[in-house]
């Protein structure tokens, strides 16, 4: 989106929000608010890294954006800028401040893009996280979620698609959160605190002594059932 004053994308640390250095500050920040409000549930809880490029941002201006994000349940934790003024403002607000290098206008497309996609793969959304999700961690996706690690109690996954846990599932999971009742949840050890698929809710049996085995949860006859996975 080259015309947009605001770009939002996911990065390793959270959400990277880039504000163009060209437009009026006030119009850029109101664009930002509008962008978030359009998808407020999706962005809530996000940790934000703000990149303002060359723009010098005063402490009060930065404070306004911080408050704007906080009102929407997001946390500003770092600011990138080439401007010393902005860096000072960020430091004064106790935020991580990074001197950013100018970002190339359009990143060179990866080699893999050149190859034709199989229609089954094309457009499939998903995230893969290669670590254990600890208590307090929230993962949201408009597609599928794959966790290569455990999902500890107190962690939560909300996905519009399927959820696959290559490890122990002890936290909360909601697959097919927009109502897709064909969504499934798989885990090598299925002991979620609570499991939801579409509009159905289930909890794990309370017996403590169980033998871990790969299982799949899906909806059959209007309820969630758990079956051996691949068995």
């Amino acid at each position, binding site marked *: 989106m080259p015309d947009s004053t605001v770009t939002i994308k996911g990065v*390793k*640390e959270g959400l990277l929000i880039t504000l163009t250095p060209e437009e009026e500050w006030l119009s850029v920040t109101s664009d930002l608010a509008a962008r978030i409000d359009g998808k407020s549930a999706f962005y809530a809880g996000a940790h934000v890294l703000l*990149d303002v490029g060359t723009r010098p941002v005063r402490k009060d201006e930065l404070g306004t954006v911080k408050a704007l994000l906080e009102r929407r349940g997001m946390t500003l934790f770092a600011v990138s800028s080439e401007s010393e003024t902005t*860096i000072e403002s960020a430091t004064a607000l106790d935020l991580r401040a990074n001197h950013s*290098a100018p970002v190339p206008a359009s990143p060179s497309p990866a080699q893999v893009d050149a190859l034709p996609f199989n229609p089954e793969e094309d457009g499939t959304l998903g995230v893969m996280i290669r670590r254990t999700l*600890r208590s307090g961690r929230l993962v949201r996706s408009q597609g599928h979620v794959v966790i290569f690690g455990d999902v500890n*109690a107190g962690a939560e996954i909300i996905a519009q698609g399927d959820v696959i846990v290559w490890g122990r599932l002890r936290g909360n999971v909601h697959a097919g959160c927009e109502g897709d009742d064909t969504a499934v949840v798989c885990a090598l050890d299925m002991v979620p605190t609570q499991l939801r698929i579409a509009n159905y809710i289930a909890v794990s049996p309370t017996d403590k002594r169980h033998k871990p085995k790969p299982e799949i949860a899906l909806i059959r006859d209007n309820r969630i059932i758990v079956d051996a996975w691949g068995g």
Partner: protein
Amino acid sequence: MAANVGAGGAPTQGRKPARGAKVITVTSGKGGVGKTTTTANIGVAMAQLQKRVVLIDADIGLRNLDIVMGLENRIVYDLVDVVEGRCKLRQAMIKHKQFAELYLIPAAQTRDKTAVSPADMVKIADQLRPEFDFILIDCPAGIERGFRNAVAPADEVLIVTNPEVSAVRDADRIIGLLEAENKGPANLILNRVKPDMIRKGEMLSPEDVTDILAIKLIGIVPEDESVVSSSNAGTPLALQEGSRAGQAYRDIARRLMGENVPFMQLEESGGFLKRISRMFGGS
């Protein structure tokens, strides 16, 4: 783009191991699991082993470490006085009664966590590093500003937890936050362990806890009633021979100093804890 993050002027990120003291923050998430007791005991144990140690109480507004250390009545200046420039760092450092190279920097009691910033803590730790071997920071409960202050300068983090589901859950949350900050490695201290309850299956075992948290266990401290009386008296238990909890703290101090100390047997007959001691490198 992501590669830029943390590469710049951030004070707490990507720091190289500085020369001089190692900064160890003692934290837990949940309150009341024994952070302050642990900090005090490891501190005196290290001092006993001829190490130069500073303890910093980061629990501004709810200071306790001075009481456990028996130094409450010697406080003139505190951490906030240093940060706000009312005194020099040296003036806020209270020398321990018994050890010439053990100091305490107390928290302010009449202020709150916002009186200090993470950058202030990094600055203070860096000032202390050249003159000491270890800087131990007693972190307040919670995951807010006080926690961020306490972990900002940390080279290493000690997570204290009890064998209870709620304490372990909070420890897990803390470990997640530390991972997100690239703070590591975190070591685990399991405090207030009752072997007889574990034997009856009424308490989480060290195996249960490490199974969930998946970090290195560096100490198992048995429940000991004399922790209370020694804390009240201001003489940490690690100074008393013959106390098993005190021995556990002395062992932890030596492990933090790089020694390979076998885990002690908590039960005479050698129950599960003996197996644990074998699991974690004991002989």
